[in-house]
């Protein structure tokens, strides 16, 4: 099979204007992935499926990832002019010296939601090719193009991602919640999901559950519910 770099070259030749980025994977699995731009993603996907050499006819798995806003701390080397006292015949002699200083800088990298697609070829017996797409942010611009028109097997998995992560797949034929009920408002797999507080009775509480149960224990008159039930 072609390497990821070769696939990228093939995509760029076949789909003009497409923006493809190779994301390396330093882990032992060593599966680098291709980050697609949402505007050309469906064209790229159709190419990957129909290309005679790649023939990625099987979409095995779709999953979502929630990337929170994160603060990136990096050390930058800065060259600047510094006044320095120089030893000399005259006391307090000052001279301008160019000096390289290491400076830590912080900046906020905005979070996004990500959909990951794993493709295989049944015909050519090769794979996987990993595709990624990222939304603009996590709040209001969460649209991504749906791959269901290209691979039918994406239908339910994209519904599940819509349900659990809140990515809205445009072009999906039937985008409803899959696991939770239609009235449900949250997206449980997001990292900032607040689960319902029903820890009032925890007979074998420990760690985080114990912390949450304690709030309820103090509410019923400082009694440990387990002790009181005996």
């Amino acid at each position, binding site marked *: 099979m072609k390497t990821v770099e070769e696939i990228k070259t093939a995509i760029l030749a076949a789909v003009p204007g497409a923006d493809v980025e190779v994301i390396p994977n330093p882990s032992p699995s060593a599966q680098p992935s291709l980050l697609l731009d949402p505007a050309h993603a469906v064209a790229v996907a159709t190419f990957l499926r129909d290309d005679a050499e790649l023939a990625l006819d099987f979409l095995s798995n779709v999953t979502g990832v929630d990337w929170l806003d994160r603060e990136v701390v990096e050390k930058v080397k800065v060259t600047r002019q510094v006044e320095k006292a120089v030893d000399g015949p005259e006391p307090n002699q000052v001279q301008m010296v160019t000096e390289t200083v290491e400076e830590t800088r912080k900046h906020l990298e905005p979070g996004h939601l990500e959909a990951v697609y794993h493709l295989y070829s049944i015909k050519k017996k090769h794979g996987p090719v990993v595709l990624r797409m990222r939304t603009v942010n996590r709040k209001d611009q969460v649209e991504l193009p749906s791959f269901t028109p290209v691979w039918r097997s994406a239908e339910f998995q994209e519904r599940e991602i819509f349900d659990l992560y809140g990515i809205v797949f445009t072009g999906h034929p039937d985008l409803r919640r899959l*696991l*939770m*009920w239609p*009235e*449900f*408002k*949250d997206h*449980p797999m997001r990292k900032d*999901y607040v*689960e*319902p507080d*029903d820890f*009032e*009775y925890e007979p074998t509480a420990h760690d985080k*559950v114990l912390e949450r149960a304690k709030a309820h224990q103090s509410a*019923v*008159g400082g*009694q440990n*519910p*387990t002790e*009181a*039930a005996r």
Partner: protein
Amino acid sequence: MAVEQNLKIELGKQGVFVTTIEELYNWGRRSSVWPMQFGLACCAIEMIATTMARYDMARFGAEVFRPSPRQADLMIISGTVTKKMAPQVVRLYNQMAEPKYVIAMGACAISGGPFKQGYNVLKGIDRYIPVDVHIPGCPPRPEALLQAFITLQKKIDGQSLTGEDRPRHLDANAACEFPVPVQGDHDLEPPANRLVWPLPARKQGQGAGD
């Protein structure tokens, strides 16, 4: 009024059969408890095994699994009750005719089991409907389900038809229909029926209906 056991045996030797209405009534009730035919998760496989020839639940008069709640006496909650499924389970229970009993089978049905801290699984069906027998296990073996069934039969046998502890269907004031929870924005509303499942701290000397 109970008949003395020795007197009963003596009379039996003489060809006289003595019983009480209560005994006869409870014997009738416990000998044909028909379960409802529905399974929720992997515990249902063990429940099916229990009805098959090797374990043969028919020995206890429970071989007829009814597909309609109207004809069923026993609801076996066999498996994980998700919050999406919980309203339907309560609704089915409400549709069963009295007298009706519930066996919560397996870790999930009694407490949420391995999914207890999840967002989508009910932490035990006894939050919404009264449960007669709880079976731990993941899943419980068929023997455990039979044990639970025998426990239920003993419980039925021990009930008196009058007085405070009389069965629910003989008590005109007892609730036999339980509110069906609504699927809300974030969780089921209400998260538990406090009449059926009072907080354990307040449970002392009150009895939780089981």
